[in-house]
C-alpha cells in the first residue's frame, strides 16, 4: 500500500507508544504523591497521533506541539531520560529545567517546541515552512494541535497564508474532543473540523487517530505533497482524551459511557493486535517490556540528576543587559 509503514517502523512506533503510555502512568503516580511541579497534561489514548505522525517525517523536518505533547516528543526521537529530567527540573533535562514539560525544545531532533499558548504552534510551524520555502529546502514542518486551538484567530490567519503561499507545512489536528472541559460541539458549529481546509485551498482529510497506519499514511502523503511544492494539508485525527485536562483536573464532565468505546479502541491495544499478526505475540511482548524498562531506567537516572543553579548568562538576555 502506498505510504504504508514498514514492519520495522511499526515495531518502532509501538515501542514509542508504550514508552509514552508508561511515561504518563508513572508521571501520574508521581503527581498523585505530590512529587511533580505544576500541572502535567497526559496524552493517554492519543499516542498513535503524535508517534505515528512523527514516524512519517524525516529527521531534519521540524515539528511543534502543544502543552500535551509527550507523544510528539517521544515520536520525534527525544530520549526518555532527557524528557523526564526536564519534567523534574534537572540540569540534564533538554532545557536544563528552564522549559518544563510544556515548553520543551530540542533543535537537534527538530523538535521546535511544545507550546502552552493554545494555538501558538500553528503559526509557529507555518513560519518555519516560510523559512524552508525562502531557503529552497525540501524539508517540511508539522504542527500537532488540538480542536481547542482550531478555534483561535491565529489558526485561521496561519492556515490562510499557508494555503495562499503553498507552504510546506502539515497541520495535524488532533481532535480529542475537549478544549479543557468544554466539548468540541460547544465550541464549533461543524463536527468535522477538516472541512475548513476547503477555505484555504488545501486538502482536508479525516483519519482514525487511534490507528497508527492511518495516521502514518496520511502524514506521509502530506509530506510528499509539501516537498513537491504543492502546499499544506489539514489532517484531522479523531481521538479521545482519556485522562482529563491535567493532573489538576477535578473531572466530572467526561462520562464513563462516553469513554468506554474509546478505551475499547485503545491505540496501543490496536497496534499490539496488528503487530502480533505480523511478528508474533512474543516479539510484541518483548518490545513492550523493553519500553517499560527504558522508562523505569529513565526515572531512576533522572531523579538522581542534579538541579540547575541560577546564573546570569548570555541566553538570559533579560538579565545580561543590565549592569
Amino acid at each position, binding site marked *: 500500500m502506498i505510504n504504508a509503514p514498514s514492519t520495522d517502523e511499526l515495531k518502532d512506533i509501538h515501542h514509542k507508544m508504550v514508552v509514552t503510555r508508561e511515561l504518563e502512568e508513572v508521571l501520574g503516580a508521581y503527581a498523585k504523591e505530590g512529587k511533580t511541579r505544576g500541572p502535567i497534561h497526559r496524552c493517554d489514548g492519543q499516542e498513535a497521533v503524535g508517534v505515528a505522525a512523527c514516524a512519517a517525517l524525516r529527521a531534519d523536518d521540524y515539528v511543534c506541539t502543544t502543552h500535551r505533547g509527550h507523544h510528539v516528543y517521544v515520536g520525534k526521537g527525544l530520549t526518555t531520560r532527557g524528557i523526564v529530567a526536564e519534567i523534574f527540573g534537572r540540569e540534564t533535562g533538554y532545557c536544563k529545567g528552564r522549559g518544563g514539560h510544556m515548553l520543551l525544545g530540542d533543535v537537534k531532533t527538530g523538535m521546535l517546541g511544545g507550546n502552552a499558548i493554545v494555538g501558538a504552534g500553528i503559526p*509557529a510551524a507555518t513560519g518555519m515552512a516560510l523559512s524552508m520555502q525562502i531557503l529552497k529546502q525540501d524539508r517540511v514542518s508539522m504542527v500537532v494541535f488540538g480542536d481547542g486551538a482550531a478555534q483561535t484567530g491565529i489558526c485561521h490567519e496561519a492556515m490562510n497564508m499557508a494555503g495562499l503561499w503553498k507552504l510546506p507545512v502539515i497541520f495535524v489536528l488532533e481532535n480529542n474532543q475537549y478544549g479543557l472541559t468544554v466539548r468540541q460541539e460547544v465550541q464549533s458549529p461543524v463536527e468535522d473540523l477538516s472541512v475548513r481546509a476547503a477555505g484555504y485551498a488545501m486538502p482536508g482529510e479525516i483519519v482514525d487517530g487511534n490507528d497508527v497506519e492511518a495516521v502514518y499514511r496520511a502524514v506521509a502523503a502530506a509530506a510528499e505533497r509539501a516537498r513537491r511544492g504543492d502546499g499544506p494539508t489539514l489532517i484531522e485525527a479523531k481521538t479521545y482524551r482519556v485522562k482529563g485536562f491535567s493532573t489538576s483536573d477535578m473531572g466530572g464532565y467526561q462520562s464513563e459511557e462516553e469513554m468506554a468505546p474509546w478505551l475499547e479502541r485503545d491505540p496501543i491495544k490496536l497496534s499490539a493486535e496488528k503487530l502480533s499478526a505480523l511478528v508474533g505475540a512474543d516479539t510484541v511482548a518483548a518490545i513492550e517490556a523493553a519500553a517499560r524498562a527504558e522508562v523505569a531506567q529513565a526515572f531512576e537516572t533522572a531523579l538522581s540528576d542534579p538541579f540547575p543553579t541560577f546564573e546570569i548568562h548570555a541566553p538570559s538576555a533579560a538579565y545580561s543587559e543590565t549592569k
Partner: protein
Amino acid sequence: MTVMRYAEALNAALREEMQRDPSVFLFGEDIGRYGGVFKVSKGLRDEFGDARVRDTPISEQALTAMAVTAAMSGTRPVLEIMYADFLPLSLDALVNQASVFTYLWEGQVDIPFVLRTQGGGGVGTGAQHAKSLDAMVCHIPGIKVVAPATPADAKGLLKSAIRDRQPVVFLEHKLLYNTRGEVPDGDDVLVPIGKAKTVVEGKHVSIFASSKMVIEAENAAKLLAKDGVEAEVIDLRTLRPLDLDAIRRSIAKTNHAVVVNEGWTFCGYASELSATIMEHCFDDLDAPVARVAMPDMAIPYSEPLEMAVLPNAVKIAAAAKKALA
C-alpha cells in the same frame, strides 16, 4: 556623505542587507507591489522578487508569530507592522514566543528578526493611528527596542538590527520619514544598538529623548538658550538596552534631568527612565526628575486638540525651567 530622507535611508539599509545576506526577507501589508504605505520598501520587490518582498494578508498576530519561528529556522525576517497602534496584535508573539525561547532552550536558537513599525501623532490620524506604544514593547525582556531620530541613525541602526541575533522592535515615526540628513556612504557603516548620542552639549539640565521627540528637545534647548539656560540633549537612539553610562555622564555634569516620551505618562517609557535615573544618579540630582509625556487619554482628532496633548518643545522647556527653579 549623501543627503537622504529618513525613508530613503531605511530603504537603503534594507536593500544593502538583502544584497549582503540572501536569508533576509521582508513581509508585511502593502510592502511589495506598492512599496509600503510610507514607501520604505519602494523598489525592493522589483529587485528581489515576490518571495523575499512579500505582500501579506491583514494578519498581524500570525505574521509576528511566523517571524519568530522563521527566524529560529534559518532566515532573517523583517516584518513591517503598518502602525504602532497595531502592536497589541503582535504582543502575544513578542511576549510569549520571541522573548522566551532563547533562554528557555538554553541558547539552542537565535531569533534574529526585526519588527519595523511607525507611531506618533501630529497629522490628524486619530486615536487608533497616532500612538507611541514604546513602553509596551520595552517592557518585554529579551527584546531590543530602537527608535532613531535621524536618517543616518535610521540606516545604521536598521542594519545593526537586521544583523542582530535577538528580536529587535524598530520604532519609526510618521513625521520623520520626510526629514533629511547626511548619511555616511558605505555598506558597512553600522550604528551600534545600545549607544546614545549627545546632540546638544549643555551644562545646566539634561534632556533625554528619542525619535521625533529629539527634534522637540533640540527646539526646547533653543528656547531655553534665550533665557541663558544651557540644556544638554541626549538622543537615546536605543530604548532597550539603555545606555546607562551616557545618562550617568550627562547628569553628573548637569545635575538636572528631564525625560521625554511621546507615549502615555502612567507606566510609560518616561517613567522607566525616571526610575532608572533615580536609582543610578540620585546623588547627582539637585531636583526631582521631570517627565514630559502624553496625558493618559485617547489622542483626539481635531488639530488644536491633538496639538494640546502631544509633548512638544514648549512643554519640555517649561519642565526644564521648573526643574531648575
